[in-house]
């Protein structure tokens, strides 16, 4: 459905995309994560035809998006990171514009607008001007304009940035529904729990290229978990073993964190050193750990 290969794009001598390659299959939600500057938004701009790469290939549903950009754009719906709404028109008119540009005739466009508005809880504000919408409603209207033509590929660039929990939930539900209907979804975000909610395939970007791809379990399998113990700050800390010391860090005056692949053994080692924890928390590796391990800028 979406396939990019070896994309290269530079701005001011800096390579923002440096061989970026990603694939998203029909019905798949690919969650693209990475720090600011990793190339996520530039990738969305290249796929949507706003930016031309210096090298590489982009294919959307078998259409070469660099040779036939209009044909490719007819297959995708885009919700850019920054809000792009007509403030002076109503939500209905705004969505009607994008339904029409997606090729829907008047009656079909009206139905599509009503459906997507219902899906994204915009039914009550359809006849309000975009300028008077709340932040969350604007986010939903933005996503609705991407979804209204039932595109085969959805590009959602941080669609929930600054959104309230209700908006976030409505958006995630709508995205899941689109994927279930067969659309491919490329979803960039910094909110990692959303990707767990979406059961998305994780794509980790760093310095303009993809450094890891897979499901959450596979990508976190090789990462350590963590033991966190709280201690009485008045008591002297016992000496750690050589094996534990490099994996241990202070967490304030009264806690220690130990990176671990074997929590029972390391907890036993702590106790044998003479530690008397007041509380013990054991945490399995999660997406934050993955993000920290993979998405940090190289070097």
């Amino acid at each position, binding site marked *: 459905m979406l396939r990019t290969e070896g994309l290269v794009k530079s701005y001011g001598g800096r390579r923002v995309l440096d061989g970026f390659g990603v694939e998203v299959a029909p019905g798949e939600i690919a969650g693209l994560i990475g720090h600011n500057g990793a190339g996520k938004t530039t990738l969305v701009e290249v796929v949507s035809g706003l930016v031309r790469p210096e090298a590489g290939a982009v294919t959307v549903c078998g259409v070469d998006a660099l040779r036939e950009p209009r044909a490719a754009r007819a297959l995708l719906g885009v919700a*850019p990171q920054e809000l792009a709404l007509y403030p002076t028109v109503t939500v209905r008119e705004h969505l009607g514009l994008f339904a029409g540009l997606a090729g829907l005739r008047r009656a079909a466009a009206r139905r599509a607008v009503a459906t997507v508005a219902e899906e994204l809880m915009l039914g009550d504000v359809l006849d309000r001007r975009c300028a008077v919408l709340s932040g969350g409603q604007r986010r939903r209207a933005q996503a609705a304009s991407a979804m209204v033509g039932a595109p085969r590929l959805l590009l959602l660039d941080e669609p929930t940035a600054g959104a309230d929990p209700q908006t976030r939930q409505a958006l995630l539900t709508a995205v899941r529904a689109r994927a279930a209907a067969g659309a491919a979804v490329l979803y960039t975000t910094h909110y990692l729990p959303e990707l767990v909610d979406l059961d998305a395939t994780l794509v980790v970007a760093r310095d303009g290229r993809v450094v890891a791809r897979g499901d959450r379990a596979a990508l976190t399998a090789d990462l350590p978990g963590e033991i966190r113990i709280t201690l009485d700050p008045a008591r002297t800390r016992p000496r750690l073993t050589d094996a534990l010391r490099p994996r241990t860090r202070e967490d304030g005056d009264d806690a220690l964190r130990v990176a671990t692949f074997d929590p029972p053994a390391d907890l036993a080692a702590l106790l044998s050193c003479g530690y008397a924890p007041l509380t013990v928390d054991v945490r399995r590796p999660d997406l934050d750990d993955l993000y920290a391990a993979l998405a940090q800028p190289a070097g």
Partner: protein
Amino acid sequence: MRVDTSPVRAAEPRKEHRDARRDHVRNRDREGDLGRDRRTAAWRDAALRTSVLIRHNTAVLLHEPGPLIGRLVMPLILLLALRPLYEAARGPSGTADAVVGSLVTFSLLALSIVGSSILSERAWRTWDRLRCTPARPAELLLGKAVPVLGVLALQQTVVLVFGALVFGMPVAAPGLLVLACTAWGLALLGIGTAAGLVVRSYGQLSAVFDIGALVLTTLGGALVPLSTLPGWVRAVSPASPGYWAADGLRHAAEGDTGRTLVCASVLLGVAAATGAVAAWRVSRGWGRALAV
């Protein structure tokens, strides 16, 4: 040695050749039909998208009717104020000069509609959003231009009808007047579109329109009769499109075909040149704008 010279065998290659030719022609016709169907569908889609854009941009204009109403009423008030001045300076023909002057001056305000509407789209980032759709740049520009041309046509009609009915402005050749108005409207559209695409902020756009209005109206002899202005202004006035608009409209009202065609040609040249600048800017991406 036996040589088979039977006509059947000799004819086989020719028959195969004929069949191949017939298949080729059929395939070509079929592909031609498919190509034609595809082209027809593409044109139909383009027409649908353009009509959607025209409808949308008309709605955007009508949601803020204040500027439109102002641009329709203000020329009539200016016309009432300037007519005595023009008649004092030019005699009975002053009425036509006052109508034309008022029309040219206030059609420049309509110019700001197209410029600011394009700049607003850039500032709202909706241009980029539209560029992610299958719409061609030409469709986007046409969708923007048609409602503004409609506003210009309405404004010009109101002023000319008011001038003719209330002040008895003589119109010898209505057809020529329509030609001159159309050429002036297209020139304004080109100038406004180019300005809206080249500037980077509302402040820059405002400066462009302030200076442009001075050049197009005062130097062009639309605001006050050219004959009352200093000699150096009269010398440079042909550099202003406003001069050709006012001159063309006056001569069109008098029924002077030759002069009207010259003026219309100059205005269409301005439209083509500024349209080319706009197209060049569009082909390089619209650029980001600042809402300041």
